[in-house]
Each structure stands twice: as C-alpha cells, then as structure tokens.
C-alpha cells in the first residue's frame, strides 16, 4: 500500500467521523421512532394504554379478522372498508388536485418573473395557518345554512329550510382533502413546467400540432416528473389524513389516519394503531419506489448540457 492510499483511507475515516452527528440525529429522530412503532405493533395491548412486552402478531391479524365470543377468528370487513375508502378518497383527491392544479401551474409558469414569484408565494399562504382552522372553515361553508346554502337559495335552488347538506359525506371529505393538499400538487407541477422550454410549444405549433396535441405530445410527457411527484405528495398525506374525515366526515366516515388516531387516543389499543401505521408506511414506501423508477425513466428527458456524440 502506497503512502497516499494509506492517507486516503485515514481521510475517509475522518470524514466518516465528521458526519457522525448527522447519523446520530437521523437514527435518534427518524429510525428510532419507527423501530419503536414496529416493536409496539408486535406487542400485546394493555387495556389502559401502553403495552405488555410480550410478542404478539394479533394486531396485524386484527386488521382483517375479529375474535368472536367463542374465541374463533372470523373475517371482519369493517377495517377493510376503511382501507378501501381511504384509497378511493385519496385517489379521487389526487386526480382532482391534478385536474385543478395542472392548468393553475401552467398559468403561473407562463407569467413574467415578478408575477410568477408573487403567485407561488400566494400558493404557499394557506400553510401559514393551522390545517384544523382551515378545515373548520369548510364546515361553515358546507354546513346547514352555510355559504353553499346561501348561494343556492339566492338562485332559488332550495326549498324553504332545505339544505344542500354536504356535511358528513364522502364528498365533504373529498373537498377538504383536495383543498388541503392542492398546493402540494401545484408546486412540483409548476417547477417542472417552469423548466420546460416555451419554444418547444412554438415548435410543436409550427409542426401542425393543435392545442390538445401540444398538451398530450409535449407538455404532459415533459412535466411527467412533476405530475408523479405532485401525485405522491398529495396521495400519501391523504391516505393518512384524519382532520378532514373527523371534521367534515363527522367521525362517521373513518379513514386510515383517523383509525390510527382513534386507536392511540380513544381506544388505547397501541399495538393495533401501530400495526395500521406500519401498513400505511409500507404503502407509502411502495408508492415512493414507483416514483423513483418513473423519475429514473424520465431523467433521460433532461436536456443534458454538452451532450457528446460518439459515432
């Protein structure tokens, strides 16, 4: 071994030592809680909250099966329905956010620089206020005698004392979810649209593409990373949302997030709550892996600077 190689090895060790604080904080603050959660999900519940440190997988079984009076396992669809509802609502919210967010992001990306920055700033404003407060505003808008009812009665669409009564429905939850997470869709879409060269649209129009074809053949493929990124940013928190289902669904239409919250706070069944959370985590990891694959595929779209020819 030459002296310089030896020196390099020492340097590498030193560098590893240098990032030690990062490793410690990541393990303590991120991996640690996850491990605790995983451990809790595999333990026996204590009726008053907390756990008995005994290995038990029944919490995972509880997601699909119930134990009846005769100590037999039987299929219980209640939680499966909640899982399905979560998926449907999260998917619908993602699709709606994409439909609303796509033109909005396109509009912002086409503005002059100073207005662009202002509009992006405006998009982020809702994050300054507590989500609970903002969701509660929807209760006032959608509820009996609320803003929606007033608009409807102004146009004589309601009988006296009638109400559109959207509250405590899946629709109300959906509205709340789309509202809460729309900015998370717009921002990545905006960032990929802003990177897109406008001249490509001129080139497309020059080559006889109409508006629809411009969107389909040029804008959509080139903003795919933003579409995928935004969809994950909306889909993942929607799956785990509990404020919108609680306030707008009236706690009757549970979603996975509300279920977790319920298990920890009200039912005091920590292992079951942890098991659902772990399942949620698995779903998110799968979604992120799909995203990473798609992003790799689209990396080749990026116009590499100084691409060299080798012919």
């Amino acid at each position, binding site marked *: 071994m030459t002296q310089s190689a030896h020196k390099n090895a020492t340097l590498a060790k030193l560098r590893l030592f240098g990032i030690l604080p990062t490793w410690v904080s990541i393990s303590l603050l991120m991996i640690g809680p996850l491990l605790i959660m995983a451990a809790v999900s595999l333990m026996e519940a204590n009726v008053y909250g907390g756990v008995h440190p005994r290995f038990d997988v029944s919490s995972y079984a509880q997601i699909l099966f119930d134990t009846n009076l005769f100590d037999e396992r039987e299929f219980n669809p209640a939680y499966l329905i909640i899982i399905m509802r979560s998926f449907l609502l999260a998917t619908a919210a993602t699709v709606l956010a994409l439909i609303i967010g796509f033109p909005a992001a396109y509009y912002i990306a086409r503005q002059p620089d100073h207005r662009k920055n202002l509009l992006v700033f405006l998009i982020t404003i809702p994050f300054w206020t507590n989500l609970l407060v903002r969701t509660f505003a929807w209760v006032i808008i959608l509820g009996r005698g609320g803003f929606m009812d007033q608009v409807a009665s102004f146009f004589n669409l309601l009988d006296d004392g009638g109400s559109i009564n959207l509250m405590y429905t899946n629709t109300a939850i959906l509205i709340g979810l789309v509202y809460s997470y729309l900015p998370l869709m717009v921002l990545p879409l905006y960032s990929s649209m802003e990177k897109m060269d406008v001249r490509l649209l001129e080139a497309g*129009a020059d*080559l*006889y593409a109409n508006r629809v074809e411009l969107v389909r053949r*040029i804008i959509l493929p080139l903003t795919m990373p933003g579409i995928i990124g935004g969809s994950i940013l909306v889909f993942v928190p929607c799956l785990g949302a509990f404020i919108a289902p609680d306030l707008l669904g009236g706690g009757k239409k549970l979603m996975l997030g509300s279920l977790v919250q319920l298990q920890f706070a009200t039912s005091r069944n920590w292992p079951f709550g942890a098991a659902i959370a772990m399942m949620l985590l698995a779903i998110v990891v799968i979604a992120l892996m799909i995203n990473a694959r798609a992003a790799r595929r689209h990396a080749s779209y990026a116009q590499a600077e100084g691409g060299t020819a080798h012919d």
Partner: protein
Amino acid sequence: MDNKVAVDIANVTKVYGSGQNAVTAIKDVNLQIYDNEFLTLLGPSGCGKTTLLRMIAGFEGITSGRIILFEDEIESLPPNQRPVNTVFQHYALFPHLTVYENVAFGLRRQQKSAAEIDARCREVLALTQMEALADRKPSQMSGGQQQRVALARALAPTPKVLLLDEPLSALDLKLRQAMREELKQLQQKTGITFIFVTHDQEEALAMSDRIAVMSEGQVQQTGTPETIYERPANRFVANFIGEANLLAATCKKAGQTAWFDLALGGSLQADAAGISVGDKVTIMVRPERVRVHHGKAKAADGNNVQLAATVTDRMYLGSVVHFDLACGNQMLKACIRSETHQQLAPGETVTVDIPVDGCRIIQA
C-alpha cells in the same frame, strides 16, 4: 428562380403596447419573396428581422397589413394551420423524443399514413445525413448534429416556405462555414423557398439569392448580394455591409453625368440622374477601391481624385493590409492586397487615390 411570388408581405406594421408606451417593431414593410428563392433578412439585432419571420410563421400577430402565401391570406391563421415550417435559433428539438420521432412529428400531426411517414422521414434524414443517429435523443448529440435534425424536422412536412431563424449562430466558425455551403445546396436540391434571418453579413452574402437589409423595423434595401454591396441605397446599408468611406459632396453641375465638389477637396464626375446644382450628397467608396502611394497629389482629371493624407494606423491581416488615413478632418480607410502594398508606416504623408468608378452617389 422564376418570378412567382411565394410570400407577399404588404404594408405590414407591428406595434407593441399602446398609447404612450407603443413601440413600432415593424413599419409598413413591403417585401416580395419569390418561389424557390434563398432570401436573407439581414440587419443588426433589434431591427425587426426576427419579428418579421415570426409573423410569417404565425407566432406574432400583425397590427395592420397582409401576408399572402401563394395567393392565400395567412395573417389571421394560427401557426399550426400555416404550411410553413421553422428552424429555430436554438433548434427547440423535443427532448423526450428520438431523432426519428422529432422528424416524424409534423407528419404525424398531418395524419399521413404510416408508410408515407416512414418513407419521408428516411428521405429527409438521408438528405441531412442523419440516418445513422435516428434512434438518438437530442441530448446525446452535438450542436451540429442537433442543427441537422432541426433542419430535417422542418423539411419533413414539405413546407411551402422554410423559415430559418439564425440557425447557424450557435455553431462554431468552421462548422458554420460548412453549413452555409450545405444550406445553399439543400435549398437548390429541395426547391423550397428559404427565408433566412441573420445578423452576419458574410453569411448573407455567401448564401443568398437576394438580401433584404433591415433597420429600425423597415426594409432599407432589397437586392442581390452584389447590388447590396456595390450599390447600397443609403448610408445605413453602405455602413452595415462591409466597410465604407463616406465623403460629403456638393453638386456643382447637374445632368446625366454630374460634377461634384468633395468637402475634402477635389472634384469628380459621376452618373447621377435627378440631382440638381447645390444638392448635398454622400459619396461612398469601399476601402479596397482606395489606392495609397507616395508622391504628390495631382489635380483631378475626372477619373481620379487625389488627396493628401497621413497614415495613422496600419494593420497587417495576411492577405490584405488595412490603413487608417487622416485626410483633412476625416478618417479614411484603405484596404490593400499585401503583395502590392508599399512599406507605409504610421506618420508618413501619402497620397490617397480614389478612382471615380469606385464611387457611388448616395443621396442625402
């Protein structure tokens, strides 16, 4: 080149903004571009040449006037309904599509049959010598190759007119010179009318059938490269194309061949109709027409004007030598072939010999 008009630009004006902020980009331009012609719009940046091109392509609306493409008025059509195609300055190739798909893009939008698309793609890729790279993405190619793909893509739908927006400006000098040759040949081979925008006069002179020199939103002169260089219509064209010595003069005898007194001294006789006695004119003489020698200035004999001058600077450029000469209160430029030039050093007093047949009268 026959005389059928491909593009007729009639009284076209373009105003940006309104009221006090209104900026006139194009002022009442009239220009006829003939079928199967290589026409260059030449001018400094901001002269409106790119705006004019973009108006033909349909990316810019026009404030007033008409644009007629082979008898069809096109000024109100959107770009995708105009049978013209553009080679963009920075190529604007679709980064997510292969070379082949880039070239096929226009044909696919025209709903051509698969066999037709494939045949035409191979044809234009062969024409631009890019068939070997058909499966590459634009990011995997050099600037010169991207340039060829951009050309192939614009030629594929067989446009009635091909618009080229400074397509060579991003290439290095050697490649640029090679592409000039190739573009000219491509125009002749395809028989498509080319409208080429550039600020590079050498490029314009080398390639064009005709050049339209533009400045401040107006066409200053339209003509063959020889006409533009030898007989510039005004001071702007004289100064913009090549180098020019501009001499102030006054007409002292009018007629078919008029006599002019130069402000620097001496007088000369030149063909000039429509000029009356006392009119102030500008006389242009190209530096390569100017001769410089030792010895005394002789009186004007009608064929030459001889003036005393002092050499202020000498620049040896290999094939030619450039001289700056102080003559009275004016600086003159002379460009002399190396093998004929005498050893003239800065500070020497010399005689500048201006042949009358090298002079052009520019009115006003």
